């Protein structure tokens, strides 16, 4: 057959995360702004299965001063240029860089050094720019090769080694190869194979070639070939042929080359797929000071150009903490609750009204569940007594600003410090209250505040009422009910607490009375028919701070209460989110402890309406009650009044103490002397003065 051009399979760079870690460390701690060339190492192997590209690996060890390639792998000497800017990376002279390494190779050939150390033929160049703020790495490899004046040519088709050698010869070749390599501390990628007339196979160093040339022996130039193609050699042969041509052309016109490939299966070497080439050499003489040099790697689009990799997911501490939090929760799903819908929890945006002990602890617990959007609303500032009970504050929050920092803002900032992946916001806002009349001059401000609260409630999915006073819970309860948001409520007494979810009515237009079909199961109240915080009261919220003694104004609770109630409030929210019916999840009202034995239809179990805790007895009850049709907050009359009358309606409520009771018919009811006990369960009295949480 005719001669044809010898074509080489290019090397593909393969990096691991450890390489980039080490480069980042070196940039920060060693190189600084130094852009001068640095020594690194790559390695390649010759044992890959078919279908794999020729690969050049660079790992964590690439930067080792006493680099040692992994077992049966071959060293490639590398030059790293790490630029300080992306512009430098783009604009630096690529030809000149390539020539810089090309010259190294050329010098090692012409000086004869490469004869004794042929691994010097194997060189790489790596140009990088590391954007350590974004963890973006720009890089471009070159595997420089020196080209002859005319391309090398193949004299005949490549021959498989098993067509050339018998299996016994191949076995002896393997033994000779192992013997040769055992004399070197690192495996040698270049060698010669000597075949004597009496069928002895020997492998020796290139520098000993004169002992065999012109004798009755056949000399093959061998190299460890990372290529797996049947018809082509891999890249490392190019500079070897340059060396061979430089020294022995034209006295040698043609040489035989063994592309040595060695696969290991169950401890046995297989070299039969190696190939033997007969190559027509070419002149390396050049008028320039360097032969033509090529070798830039193509990028993923098969163009000569750089690549970029974004490693923020595995290197950015913020991203790492986010994925660690997610994984921790996923662990719960894998191990215990395969039906857990974590997405549902994570994407629930939570509005916390009140950044006191309840607010702080609710927020921390929400973080634990992976909630990513948390907004605090509070109009107070951090005072000296707060940090010991309110788990997001520290002493400095009281002293940094005269009078203390804004609670809402300090809480949001603390949350971000704990977990930068959270979207936390603090809003300093007062909440208008029924019976607390708004002075003429403050109407505009109150209107703005109400509007802001409405916007906040609109932009969140769930709201926690964690405010100090009962009446401050009224406005958010009304807006929450009108907007059909999830509303969680927690309140503390001295040693009692209440945690509850507000019923989310299905449609304001339908009658408040229960739908017939849903009455069938008398042990359950559907979530849409459950009451709100005010449903059990037969008095409208008024100015509860006015007639109270100091003690009542600032109710003190046992310090552990807030932790218990906050945790229960968050867990109750999560239970709602995980229930197939969501906010319509029915609450069990069966007598005694029967509901504790009922089957769960949610992976997290029951979704009670209320949790009432009595710390003096370390006891909890799970009562449930229907919405009260004369409720001053969630009844149809009030919601309708709010939806139709807007701020004008609210202003009336704020200014006229009896307006709500008149509107809802409570006034009438009081006159009819209805026994308030109907609406309460025994322990309820203990809650009558438990609205304060600070």
């Amino acid at each position: 057959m005719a001669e044809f051009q010898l074509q080489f399979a290019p090397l593909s760079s393969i990096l691991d995360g450890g390489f980039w870690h080490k480069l980042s460390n070196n940039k920060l701690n060693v190189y600084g702004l130094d852009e001068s060339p640095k020594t690194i190492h790559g390695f390649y192997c010759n044992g890959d299965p078919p279908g794999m590209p020729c690969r050049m690996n660079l790992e964590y060890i690439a930067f080792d001063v006493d680099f040692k390639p992994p077992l049966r792998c071959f060293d490639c000497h590398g030059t790293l240029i790490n630029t300080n800017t992306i512009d430098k990376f783009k604009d630096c002279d690529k030809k000149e860089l390539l020539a810089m390494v090309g010259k190294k190779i050329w010098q090692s050939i012409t000086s004869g050094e490469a004869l004794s150390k042929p691994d010097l033929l194997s060189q790489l160049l790596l140009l990088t720019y590391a954007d350590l703020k974004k963890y973006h790495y720009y890089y471009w490899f070159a595997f420089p090769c020196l080209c002859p004046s005319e391309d090398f040519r193949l004299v005949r088709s490549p021959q498989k080694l098993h067509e050339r050698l018998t299996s016994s010869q191949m076995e002896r070749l393997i033994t000779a190869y192992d013997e040769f390599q055992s004399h070197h501390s690192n495996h040698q990628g270049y060698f010669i194979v000597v075949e004597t007339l009496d069928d002895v196979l020997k492998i020796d160093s290139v520098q000993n070639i004169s002992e065999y040339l012109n004798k009755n022996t056949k000399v093959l130039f061998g190299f460890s070939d990372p290529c797996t193609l049947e018809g082509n050699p891999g890249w490392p042969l190019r500079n070897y042929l340059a060396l061979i041509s430089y020294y022995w052309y034209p006295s040698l016109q043609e040489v035989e080359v063994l592309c040595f490939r060695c696969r290991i299966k169950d401890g046995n070497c297989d070299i039969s797929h190696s190939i033997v080439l007969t190559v027509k050499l070419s002149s390396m003489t050049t008028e320039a000071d360097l032969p033509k040099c090529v070798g830039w790697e193509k990028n993923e689009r098969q163009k000569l150009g750089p690549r970029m990799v974004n490693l923020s997911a595995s290197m950015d501490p913020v991203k790492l903490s986010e994925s660690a939090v997610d994984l921790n929760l996923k662990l719960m799903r894998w191990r215990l609750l395969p039906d857990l819908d974590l997405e549902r929890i994570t994407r629930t945006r939570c509005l916390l009204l009140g950044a006191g002990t309840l607010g702080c602890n609710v927020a921390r617990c929400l973080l634990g569940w992976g909630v990513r959007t948390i907004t605090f609303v509070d109009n107070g500032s951090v005072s000296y007594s707060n940090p010991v009970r309110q788990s997001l504050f520290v002493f400095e929050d009281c002293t940094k600003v005269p009078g203390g920092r804004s609670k809402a803002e300090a809480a949001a900032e603390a949350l971000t410090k704990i977990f930068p992946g959270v979207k936390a916001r603090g809003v300093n806002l007062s909440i208008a209250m029924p019976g607390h009349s708004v002075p003429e001059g403050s109407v505009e401000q109150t209107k703005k505040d109400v509007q802001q609260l409405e916007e906040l409630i609109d932009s969140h999915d769930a709201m926690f009422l964690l405010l100090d006073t009962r009446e401050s819970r009224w406005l958010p309860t009304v807006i929450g009910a009108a907007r059909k948001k999830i509303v969680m409520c927690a309140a503390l007494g001295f040693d009692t607490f209440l945690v509850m979810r507000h019923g989310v009515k299905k449609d304001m237009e339908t009658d408040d009375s229960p739908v017939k079909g849903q009455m069938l199961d008398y042990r359950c109240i559907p979530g849409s028919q459950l009451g709100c915080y005010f449903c059990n009261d037969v008095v409208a919220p008024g100015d509860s701070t006015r007639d109270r003694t100091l003690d009542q104004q600032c109710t003190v609770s046992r310090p552990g209460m807030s932790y218990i109630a906050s945790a229960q409030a968050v867990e109750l929210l999560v239970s709602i989110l995980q229930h197939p019916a969501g906010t319509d999840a029915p609450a069990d009202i069966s007598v005694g402890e029967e509901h504790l034995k009922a089957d769960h239809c949610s992976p997290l179990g029951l979704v009670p309406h209320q949790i009432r805790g009595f710390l003096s007895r370390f006891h909890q009850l799970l009562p449930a009650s229907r919405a009260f049709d004369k409720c001053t907050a969630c009844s149809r009359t009030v919601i309708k009044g709010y939806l139709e009358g807007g701020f004008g309606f609210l202003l009336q409520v704020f200014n006229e103490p009896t307006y709500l009771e008149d509107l809802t018919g409570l006034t009438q009811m009081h006159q009819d002397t209805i026994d308030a006990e109907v609406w309460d369960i025994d322990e309820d009295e203990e809650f009558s003065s438990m609205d304060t949480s600070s």
Partner: protein
Amino acid sequence: MAAGSISEKKFAECAIHLLEKSAHQKDHWTGEKSSSGEVYLQKRCTIPCQLPMPTTRERTLSDSQNIKEPVEDLDEAVVQDNVSTSTSMVTFVYHVVYNASYAVPVLYFNAYKPDGQLLSLEEVWAIVPQHYQDRLREERWTFITQQEHPILGRPFYQLHPCHTSTLMSQIPDTPGSNYLISWMSAVGPVLRLEMSMRYGEII
């Protein structure tokens, strides 16, 4: 030692034995020692893997695309249409570390795309052979999670050790058998870590 668990001393013995066998059959396990003296086993390998999504995601290379000047002379001595370069390759790094609280070995691993990008947990799952995915889902004898490497301090995936001792107590302890080899033969294939049958030979 509780059934299915192993002492640190025994772990070290098994590790040395495994390294001997690895060297004997030219496998790539190495014994590594941290600066503080902890010992662990390591193996690395690059294998072709089809990932669910293209390995090269949409990149914003606009900054660096515009390199206009020719960077080198025309080179015709290159294999054209090199099909094999399009193969997606994944580089696995396996570490076997002793965990004193569970008293079992733990398999840590990372898997990288050619550009050094760590595979996401979803991508790792996608390369777990299907029948192991099914088994893991049903039997839940282990699961993959990401942890800080106890020695290197970088994020690594791990096969969680909580059920290792249960699993190992079901594998009969025959004379000459090596705990680490039995365990790795059982769990390794989940993560493309193949143990040659010859590890079972008694030498």
